[in-house]
């Protein structure tokens, strides 16, 4: 299987026939009921996946006493969803305002995501299409940072920040998040595969500048790769807990993860306010935007954007 065209033909033919994207299953000669059994197994796993999210949704409609005192997978009166939602916009118990955290998270994820995508594209291109002294060593250096636990870096990073005034600065969160070994790996692999060297050489012959080649040839050819890197970074920043935990001391700057965990600690250390439903509702509102995003981009994930991320 050396030729990409080979597989290309295969799928094109399948498309022409209007067939499903797999071999017709009757050819496998399966025993009767196999499909049903497998579907049931998948159904069970789907239930396993969905149940916690359903629990979150159900309990977001309850008061604290009802969260504790009524069956977890069923609703209870009074219907408290709107009160819980409105609590997300207020500073409950001095812990901070959920909506602020949501906004912060969006900011960090967007800026770091775009920045990381750009840096990864630049570096990926540099590694994929140029040979320069030390390139290999540098590439391995980049990859080796995957192995450094964030727990090891965050604390010294904080102490370094203190010296340069990045403590409690949004840049202290955003800039490190732009370092993405996986992003570079992805972009290098993707550019290797989808930006023909001959095309670049031809452009050079025509006198195009390196910048122009990158912007007008390389970037358009790597859009799926770019979106993948963007998505992965956005998710990584969205989920990041440890770094912001260490570097922020103002609840105004917290992202959702740190905000929610501080809320949970407050709830677990005997706060007087009813924080648990707020916590649950906050969790739900944290999860929903990404789920909606994924439902929209799901086709895109299937389309192969993630492929490069794992091929060796």
């Amino acid at each position, binding site marked *: *299987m050396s030729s990409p065209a080979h*597989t290309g033909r295969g799928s094109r033919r399948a498309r022409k026939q209007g067939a499903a*994207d*797999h*071999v*017709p299953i009757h050819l496998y*000669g*399966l025993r009767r009921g196999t*499909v049903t059994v497998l579907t049931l197994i*998948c159904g069970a796993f*789907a239930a396993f*996946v*969905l*149940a916690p*999210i359903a*629990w979150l949704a159900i*309990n977001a409609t309850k008061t604290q006493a009802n969260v*504790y005192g009524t*069956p*977890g997978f069923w609703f209870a009166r009074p219907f408290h969803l709107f009160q819980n939602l409105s609590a997300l916009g207020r500073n409950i118990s001095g812990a901070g305002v959920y909506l602020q955290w949501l906004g912060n998270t969006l900011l960090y994820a967007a800026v770091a995501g775009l920045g990381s995508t750009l840096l990864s594209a*630049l*570096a990926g291109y*540099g590694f*994929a*299409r*140029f*040979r320069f002294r030390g*390139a290999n060593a540098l590439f391995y250096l980049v990859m080796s*940072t995957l*192995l450094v*636990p964030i*727990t*090891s870096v965050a*604390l*010294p*990073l904080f*102490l*370094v920040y203190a010296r340069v005034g990045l403590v409690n600065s949004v840049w202290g969160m955003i800039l490190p998040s732009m370092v993405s070994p996986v992003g*570079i790996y992805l972009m290098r692999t993707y550019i290797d595969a989808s930006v023909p*060297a001959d095309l670049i*050489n031809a452009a050079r012959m025509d006198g195009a500048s390196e910048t122009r080649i990158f912007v007008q040839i390389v970037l358009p050819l790597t859009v799926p790769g770019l979106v993948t890197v963007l998505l992965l970074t956005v998710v990584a920043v969205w*989920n990041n*807990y*440890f770094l912001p935990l260490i570097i922020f001391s103002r609840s105004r700057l917290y992202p959702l*993860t740190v905000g*929610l*965990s501080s809320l*949970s600690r407050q709830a677990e250390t005997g706060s007087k306010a009813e924080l648990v439903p707020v916590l649950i509702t906050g*969790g739900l509102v*944290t*999860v929903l935007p990404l*789920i909606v995003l*994924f439902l929209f981009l*799901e086709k895109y994930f*299937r389309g*192969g954007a*993630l*492929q490069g991320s*794992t091929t*060796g």
Partner: protein
Amino acid sequence: MTHIPASRPRGLGRRGSTRQWPGAVFITPHMLALALFMLVPTVYAVYDSLQTTRLIGGTHFSGMANYRAVLHSAEFWEGVRRVLLFAAVQVPLTIGLAFLFAAAFDAGIVKYSRFFRTVFFLPFAVPGVVAALMWSFLLLPGFGPYAKLADGIGLGHVDFFSSRMILPTIVVIVLWEWTGYNVTIIYTSLKSVPQQITEAAIMDGARLGTIILRLKLPMVWPTITMLFFLNTVGALQLFTEPSILAAFQPQSVSFGFTPSLYVYNTAVGSGDYNLGAAAAVVLALIIGALSLGAFALRRRRGEFA
């Protein structure tokens, strides 16, 4: 399935050898960020790890004393053993399960497979913090619906946070979080296996099981090894889930439950930055050594690209 021919970039290099400097320029922004935000703190951590600070008596250079303390800390090694065990169970389980699901979806032998793929992927959208919070509520002894369910169906009183159950509990949570992501990647990879190959195998009389395990699995093996690597590194750095569970059931998660928690609790929790830094360096070295070992092995087998 072969890897990207290693000669290709090099060949290109020879052809375009007059124009090599832009490569260095293109990688500069990222390398700068890397140096400032990864290397500088790492060097600082190493420096910190060579000092000792006392409440009475101040700070002095202490050489390898902190490293000796870490290497002799039973608690630290207990954590290391725990994450190794965790990785050894969780990673094959997640990837194995993900492969079976992906293979079933790929072969089209499951109804509503599109729906299932979407649903399975959803937990990827749930931050580890939120996932751990949800599962804490679901499993809490005496309160969680799942704990009550276990009671109800006659399993007796199951304490998912007991010292015997806490690790399996985290395995389940992490399985919940990551299986779908792995399914998506393996599925995408499987989709690129040409259909003719499958068809030909069917003509030869191969059964479905044989096709999946003998034909397709080897073809997506590079993907799977990469997933093994990423999942394992993640597992060894386990932090978020146990630290959130600890907020609910402090007795279940000890000081050095995982090496990352040991680092955090030593440096942040007990204010001993120096010892924490030494533990962090040791942890990074352990993970690095394990990965290098794995890479060396793969390279010998010719799997590394």
